[in-house]
């Protein structure tokens, strides 16, 4: 009995020591998908940049950055962040929504402040802050641009989609809604997996299948780069144009230079991870007021405004 209670006393004392210590230092865990694709490459770059900047800005803030190649390993990362690093706050860009809902709930239940970025969770009540791009808006802006450019021409277009996911459906549905009632005809749509090689292949086949194409909606800049090569190979670069999305620096540069093949781009900025980290750090370390939700608008990049979306140092 005596032994037990003294053990408990020691444990309590230890807990008190750690608690006071932790109050001085705020540990933030940032969990993101590994850089396996252009956009997630950008996410990794901007997260790294934000880490350095914010740690300088808030001396009591310590940021632990982890990246995982799939949903299961991201769930492992979360466990480690809580058990090893004992984080006080978490910024997470979930690999997939549903598989990560319960792991994040677990983190939340251990008393961690949770900011969710981009791909939401199955249960939104878990998150304290939500920061995301606007997928329907991205589709809508692309569709509205197409409509404006092609009005009254009974134009024919093809669509290169991403990977079958909720995000992709939201973009696609909003795009289709935006061109509904116009005389634009969508000849075909096909998944190109947010990938250059697939963009090239699918576009080659579309060019073989349809002798007349007036425009291409590629929905992602990696895809549009591949598609543009196929178009150039077929010698049809003067007969059509491509609208991409995301804000990859190579594409932004071309828009800036007035490339006729890719006149505009629609943003879906990977900088949103940095925004989320900044907002969360401001709240936790700086005591700033925050909103519950931040939706980052998609913007049409044109030759006029391209400069402000150009990050030459980013890998994306």
């Amino acid at each position: 009995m005596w032994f037990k209670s003294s053990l408990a006393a020691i444990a309590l004392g230890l807990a008190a020591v750690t608690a006071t210590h932790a109050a001085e230092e705020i540990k933030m865990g940032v969990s993101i998908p590994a850089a396996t694709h252009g956009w997630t490459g950008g996410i990794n770059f901007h997260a790294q940049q934000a880490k350095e900047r914010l740690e300088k800005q808030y001396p009591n803030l310590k940021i632990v950055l982890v990246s995982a190649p799939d949903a299961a390993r991201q769930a492992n990362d979360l466990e480690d962040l809580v058990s090893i690093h004992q984080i006080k706050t978490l910024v997470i860009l979930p690999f997939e929504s549903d598989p990560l809902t319960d792991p994040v709930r677990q983190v939340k239940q251990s008393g961690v402040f949770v900011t969710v970025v981009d791909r939401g969770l199955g249960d939104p009540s878990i998150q304290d802050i939500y920061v995301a791009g606007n997928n329907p808006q991205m589709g809508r802006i692309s569709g509205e641009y197409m409509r404006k450019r092609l009005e009254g021409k009974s134009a024919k277009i093809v669509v290169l989609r991403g990977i079958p996911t909720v995000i992709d459906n939201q973009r696609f549905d909003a795009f289709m809604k935006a061109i509904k009632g116009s005389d634009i005809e969508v000849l075909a749509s096909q998944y190109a997996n947010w990938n250059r090689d697939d963009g090239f292949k699918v576009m080659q086949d579309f060019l073989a299948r349809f002798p007349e194409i007036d425009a291409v909606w590629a929905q992602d800049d990696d895809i549009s780069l591949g598609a543009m090569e196929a178009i150039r190979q077929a010698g049809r670069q003067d007969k059509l144009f491509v609208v991409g999305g995301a804000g990859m620096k190579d594409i932004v540069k071309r828009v800036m230079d007035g490339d006729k093949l890719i006149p505009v781009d629609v943003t879906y900025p990977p900088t949103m991870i940095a925004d989320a980290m900044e907002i969360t750090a401001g709240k936790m370390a700086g005591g700033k007021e925050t909103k519950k939700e931040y939706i980052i608008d998609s913007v049409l990049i044109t030759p006029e405004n391209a400069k402000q979306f150009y990050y030459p140092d980013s890998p994306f």
Partner: protein
Amino acid sequence: MPPASRRPAIRVDLKVWGPFLALAALIVLATLVNPAFLNPSNIVNVLTRSAFIGIIAIGATFVIAAGAIDLSVGSMAAFIAGVAIIAMNALVGGAGAGALIVAAGIAVSVGLGIVAGGVNGVLVTKGRIEAFIVTLGTMGIFRSLVTYLANGGTLSLDPAVRTVYRPLYYGGIFGISYPIILFALVAAAGAVILYRTRFGRYCSAIGSNEQVARYSAVSVNAVKTMAFVIQGLCVALAVAIYVPRLGSASATTGLLWELEAIAAVIIGGTRLKGGYGRIWGTVVGTVTLTLIGNILNLTGAISVYLNGAIQGAIIIIAVLLQRGNGTRGTG
């Protein structure tokens, strides 16, 4: 009596000609689906596109015939492409863009391919680790290395070098693109080596029964290592024509190429367990695989969600067809 004597003849026919017949059937189907299929430009596209996987698959035919497997080829291709791009970009600063830089880039690729294949081979033979495990390991290593080199983004070739290099993918002689020509040359060389040289016969002997080959004074380790080196060289040659296509390499370059190459080899009639390999079968297998994707893109009839299922089914049917009749009769 007559049926018994006729049966083996049919079996041999189907084993050898099965993949060719399947390809012919697919071509007819493609033409019915969309006459645009027969456009020369479409045919050239499909064959040019087949060249990457095809050249890699010819290397894989050696490895698989020797009873091993190489899962690292896709990652290796991405890694080699990345290093070659970095090398060319570094050289262009001093020398200015020219054919010499492209040649240097290809030399870097080839050197790296031989070394990478050699490492795989030595780990399998001297290290006595299963080829599956070794190449599973190097698959992860090469993939992370290219991601690291690209800083998580994309490595892009200097525009000036691209202009010089580009014709190697898009150009050709008499309307036949260079990748197709290279594919044909590699296939011919592969056929000669596998069918006409002692090394080729040793590969099959080792794949058939490694112990027996060892007792027959075949230096198993050297032959097996050499098979992996050939695989590495083939990957490098594939990269040499891949880089000019999009002028970039990223973490997604060559994703799942290893499975496509293995599928092409198996559709072509090579046994996964080793023992014999079929180079021309591999060529046909590769074209068949590429064709399926092409046909699915030429028609809107099948839901795009089902593309993977159709490809999977055709792979299985192709292999079923070519062995079904042969073994059923003899039991």
